[in-house]
């Protein structure tokens, strides 16, 4: 059936991940197109017929705002997309992710939201130093700040208020977790946790984009259950779940990524992540075809 399926991959630039997905598609002789989000002109009332030629579109845009906008448009004209716009919107926004996790009863670091800098400082001191200030949208550990004392809190908040756009005037304050120089990234595809890595760094920010080292993390039943429930809490799909290990409380789900990078996770886990992604998408296409 593979020769009957036609996919599109939406990209902003071709990273290692996109090349691995392209290789996997070629190995399976699946027809596909690469679509550069920068070249799109979307007529909302007259959707381009070319989208109907695709059985599914996989969003791999590096720009979260572009990717989400295209997902909304494609879904509204009936194109099957991965991940859905609702899931992507939730994962792109730390506030929405946290609320979804809390609704589902999934352990996550305690988080406060405030708008006024003085009120924010009151919240920070209620949690106790250190805390972590994060932008609601953002990735790769950018603009995270560990706040160790009141001087730092005042300085960072003044910078956010003065230099940041209005989005930075919404202050998302998270308790600092004394994690063991690492966190866990688990990959959930559909209803399975396919693999996980430890991301180890001497820096408190443990993103591999910031130089953390990836090693294999065994998927215990507890981790598996937590990650699957976390994925379901945001709507499910192809997701990367970031998990912190709290010395007292155990696993806490920190963030969920809807357009995950995985280049550093294939070798340590031995799991062919792009193949797993394609298996899931093709199963979804086939399921839709028999409806």
């Amino acid at each position, binding site marked *: 059936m593979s020769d009957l399926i036609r996919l599109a991959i939406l*990209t*902003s*630039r*071709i*990273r290692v991940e*996109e*090349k691995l997905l*392209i290789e996997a598609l070629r190995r399976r002789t699946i027809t596909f197109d*690469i679509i*550069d989000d920068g070249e799109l002109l979307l007529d909302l009332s007259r959707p381009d017929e070319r989208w109907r030629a695709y059985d599914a579109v996989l969003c791999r845009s*590096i*720009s*979260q*705002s*572009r990717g989400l906008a295209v997902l909304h448009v494609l879904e509204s004209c009936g194109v099957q997309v991965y991940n859905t716009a609702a899931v992507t919107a939730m994962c792109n926004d730390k506030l929405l992710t946290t609320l979804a996790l809390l609704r589902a009863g999934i352990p996550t670091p305690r988080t406060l939201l405030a708008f006024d800098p003085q009120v924010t400082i009151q919240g920070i001191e209620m949690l106790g130093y250190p805390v972590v200030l994060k932008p609601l*949208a*953002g*990735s*790769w550990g*950018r603009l995270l700040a560990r706040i160790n004392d009141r001087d730092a809190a005042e300085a960072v908040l003044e910078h956010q208020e003065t230099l940041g756009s209005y989005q930075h005037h919404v202050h998302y304050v998270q308790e600092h977790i004394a994690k063991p120089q690492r966190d866990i990234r688990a990959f959930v595809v559909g209803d399975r946790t396919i693999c996980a890595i430890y991301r180890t760094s001497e820096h408190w920010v443990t993103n591999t984009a910031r130089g953390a080292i990836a090693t294999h993390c065994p998927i215990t039943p507890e981790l598996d259950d937590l990650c699957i429930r976390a994925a379901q809490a945001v709507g499910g799909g192809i997701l*990367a779940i970031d998990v912190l290990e709290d010395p007292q409380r155990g696993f806490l789900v920190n963030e969920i*990524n*809807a*357009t*995950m*990078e995985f280049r550093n996770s294939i070798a340590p886990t031995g799991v062919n992540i792009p193949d797993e992604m394609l298996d899931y998408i093709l199963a979804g296409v086939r399921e839709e075809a028999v409806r």
Partner: protein
Amino acid sequence: MTHCPECEAEITVRDLMVGEVIFCPDCSAELEVLRLEPPTLALAPEIEEDWGE
């Protein structure tokens, strides 16, 4: 063969795709492949605030 738009070093565009980012071997500028025929490179855009996973 094409040239780095920053330092004009000669760069061979081989086994690349449109949209890929490479580094100039001479000046280390981050370059985006715009076209393969003829090979065309441009300075890659700066990371935007909404870029990520």
